[in-house]
Each structure stands twice: as structure tokens, then as C-alpha cells.
């Protein structure tokens, strides 16, 4: 009836407690992760505050507006994903191009 695949199979994880010796799967020791954790925590707390505010508004809203609360929660979750991904992959600094300023009497030279 249902053919087996290996999705979410209750296999036994081999994830042992991180040993004292460096492990190949562990991050580099020079990465403490504190900065990353702090940045993620700030974003998570902001999302948590939005969720709390939306939930707090539930009993106060008139009945026809009640479905707006789950919609706001969904929007908050999606915004959290965008923020967290932006924090994890910071953009490289933009290189400003010098604006070309035309001056009378100067001929544009094709550098190619």
C-alpha cells in the first residue's frame, strides 16, 4: 500500500556529545558563535515581541477581524526568515562608482 522511503525514518542518530578534541563536524574553534548567537537572539526576540503583541490583540479585536491575527503571525514569521537570512549572509560592501562628470572641452575617451 505504502512503499517505504527514508524520509524522516526513525533512525538512530549517531550525534554523540561534542568531545573535547576537535571534531570534523564541529565549527572552527576560533568561531565562538557568540556574535552570531547574539544577532540571531535579537532578531528572534523582536519576532517574539511581534507575536506577543498580535496574540495580545486577539481578545480585544471584534469578531470579524479575528482572522487578521493569524495573518499577522504568518507575516511576522516570514519577515523573521528574511531578517535572519540577511544577518547570516551579510552582503559585501557596495563599491561606489565615481560619477562621470561632463566638462566642456573634455572628450570622452573609450578606455577599451
Amino acid at each position, binding site marked *: *500500500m505504502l512503499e517505504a522511503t527514508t524520509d524522516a525514518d526513525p533512525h538512530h*542518530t549517531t550525534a554523540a556529545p561534542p568531545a573535547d578534541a576537535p571534531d570534523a563536524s*564541529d*565549527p572552527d574553534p576560533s568561531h565562538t558563535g557568540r556574535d552570531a*548567537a547574539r544577532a540571531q537572539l535579537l532578531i528572534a526576540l523582536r519576532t517574539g515581541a511581534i507575536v506577543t503583541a498580535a496574540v495580545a490583540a*486577539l481578545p480585544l479585536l471584534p469578531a*470579524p477581524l479575528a482572522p487578521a491575527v493569524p495573518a499577522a503571525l504568518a507575516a511576522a514569521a516570514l519577515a523573521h526568515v528574511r531578517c535572519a537570512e540577511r544577518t*547570516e549572509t551579510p552582503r559585501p560592501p557596495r563599491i561606489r562608482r565615481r560619477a562621470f562628470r561632463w566638462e566642456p572641452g573634455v572628450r570622452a575617451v573609450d578606455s577599451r
Partner: protein
Amino acid sequence: MSAAALAAVLVALAVAFTARRGARRASARPVPGLADAAREVPPWRNAAAVGGEHLCAAMYLGAAGLVLAHGTGVLWLPVGAAAGCALLAAFVAAPLRRSGAYSVADFAEWRLGSRGARHAATGCVCLVGWCYLLPQLHGAGVALYVLTGGPHWTGWTIGVAAASVLVVSGGVRSVTAFQAVHFWAKLAALTVPVLAGAVLWHAHAAPDVRAVPAAGGAPGTAGTYALVACVALGTVGLPQILMHFYASGGGGAARRTAAYVTVLVALSSVVAVLYGVLGRRHGAAAPGTGADAALLLLPQRTIPGTAGALLTGLLAAGALAAFVTASCGVAVAVGGTVAQYARRRGAAVSRASAVVVLAAPLAVMPRLGPHGAAALVTLALAVSASTLCPLLLLGIWWRGLTAPGAVAGLVCGCCLALAAGAAQLAGRGAVPAAAAAPAAAAVMVAVSLLTRRSVPRHAGRALARLHLPDGASDRPPAG
């Protein structure tokens, strides 16, 4: 119930199984960074699978039944679930996936380096799973009662037997695709009858939502806040939902999955509101267990004749599918956790454990009394909120959590949640259940501070692994 309704049930189930086969053919690739065999599931499909867990029999009947009984002011069940998914995306999903732990018990042992913490977490997982199966059995009993008029225990037995057959035949090994397709099938089974009813209703009388009668017996403002907190925090710790993040490709994918689940749960809450509005216009409100049955019978009352019977059959088929999906998910999660204690390892042990997990609540069901699906699911979520949720949140975000602190918090949370849940079922409100979660967290923090010498030596490195972006260990250190 006419033969037409039973035919509708069969057709709906056949469609669900056929669609599931199509989903299984989709390509999958191994999850990077995991030693064990597993397949990566794309975020939207994984989100639909988690949504299938959420849209269980309790949520399927409970949310719409509550709105039907009390009006649209009592949306706490779907709103709490959506809030829990948003919190899951914000605080838990990505770090948990980066830990590489399959279950909460695995995570507890990995993070705290203690077998004792693992045993305590396993006990809590079992308790949450069993409590979560109670409303599923209740839903199966109600659906079979509406379809055949037979006693509720036939529904419980047939439901457990069907889920056990699926588990033993290996069907739950493809649980993700199975649940993802079932989510959409259940949503369709919920939506089609209410849309048909709304069209007919609109043809006869213009809808006026403001004319919904005042709710009677609904929880007050404090009760609503307590229930939402219970459901939201309980959702964060549900083992059968956390299990799904293991199939995500990385921390980012797991976070995206949790966010998409919030969207799907919000979608299902809109359907609950539609049922509430439609049902109350037809005077179908009946608080308690009756609301669940009244919900299933609503299409028949709204649309007379064969069409109404067919739509009722479709709705009942959705309830049965919701029971099977959720039960399989719980059985896999709890059975997989328990099976790790067996001497022999392998799929057969997991399946046997899952069958035992499924059958255990049958002993409790006859003594449970007439409670609605929503009340029973709140009990399970209260236990999860007081035990696994603080363990996960503190384990992920606080370096100072120790194994004695975690065990003390889990034991204390279990006792408090069960006492508060019993009080809630006795009709004393949900405020004590909501207070149990912060109390358990406070015990965890206090005992951890008292035993701060036993903070694991690897705690710093474990937290770095949890919070550094995916693939950070491959990159050279900055500077």
C-alpha cells in the same frame, strides 16, 4: 448516514492515497552533514507535512467546533498554533537542525552530555505523545459515530488498528510525503463543504457577520491569554513536529519550513472562522463534545439531500485522515525515541514500539469522560509547554543549563502540568496550565545556577555549532 456518504469517504481516501503516491515519486537527495541515511525534503513540502501534523483530528474538529460553539471570539486554538510555529521559526528550528539531533531526547543528551537528561526527556516525550493521542482517538470515535451511529469505542479501535497497519507495513517511513499530501486533502475536505454551504447561504440570505449571537461559556480574557500561551509554547515542544526538521537540508531550510507552517496554519484558521459563522447562523452551536459532532453534521443541515450527505461524508473522511496522519506522526516520533532503549536496533523494533505507543491510550479513553477535542489537545500541549519547551529554549540559548537543572525542571514541569491539566479538564480554567511553563523554566534556571559547576565542558562549542550559520565550519576564520 447514507451509502452516498460512505462512498464519499472511500473516494476521498482513495484520492489522498493516490496523490501521496505521486508525491513519493518526487526526487530527493541526501541531507548534507548527516551520517545517517535520510532525505532532504524541500521546505514547502516539509511545511505541508508539519501542517498535516497540526491539522490533526483535534485541530480539525476542535478549532472549527469551538468557533461553532462559542463564536469567532474563541480562535485561541489556531491562533496559538500559528503563534507557536512563529516562535518555532524564531527560536528553535534552525539551531535544532544544526545540532543534528533526531529527537528531543537526542538533543538533551548531546547538549547536556548526560544519560539522565536523556531518560527524563524520553519520559516527557512519551507523556506528551500519549496525551496527544487522546484527542485523536476522540476524533476518530466522533467521526465513526457520525458516519455509522455506532459506539465511540469502535472508532477508537478501528482508528488504532488502521494506524497500526500503516506503521507495521512500513508506510510511516515515508511519513513526510504522506502527511504533506494529507494536509492538502484535509484542507480541501474542510473547505469544500463550507464553501458549498456559504454559496447556498448567500443565495438565500445575505451574510451578516455582525449578527453572530453572543458567545456563552467562552473563556474570558485571562483564560484566552492562558490558552493561547499554552498552545503556543506547547507547539514549540511537540516531538512529532520537531522530528520533521531533521529532514530539512540545514538550519536555514528548517527555519523557512517553520515559517511556512505558520502560513498554512493561518490558512486553516480562516476555514474554522467560516464554519463558525455558517454554523451559528444555522443554530448548530452546542458546547462540549457535541460541538465536534455538530460540525460534522453541519453540511447535512445546511444542504438537504444527497449533496449534503456527500459533503458530510467528505468532512468525516477528512477527520479520519486527520486521525491517521497525526497518529502515525506521534507513533513514529515516540516509537523512534523509545526504540533506542531496545537491545536490538532496526526498523522492526521501531515499528513494534510505535504499535505499543498507539495502543496504550486505549486503556485511558473509556475513563476520560465527555470532553471536547479542544480540551484534550490543550492538556497535551500544556504538558509539552511545561517540559520540552523550556528544555529546548534554555538548551539552545543559555550556556549555563546543566543536566541536574534540566532533569529537575522536566520532573517539576510534568507534575505541575498534569495537575493543572486535570484541573482544567475539571472545568477550573487554563490559567494554572499556563503558569506551569514559566514555573518549570524557573526551576531549570534555579537548579542550574545552584549546580553551575556541572556545566558541560563542551557547552561553548555546542552553542557555537547551534548558532553559527550553515557551513560556517568550512569557512576560514575572519581576520
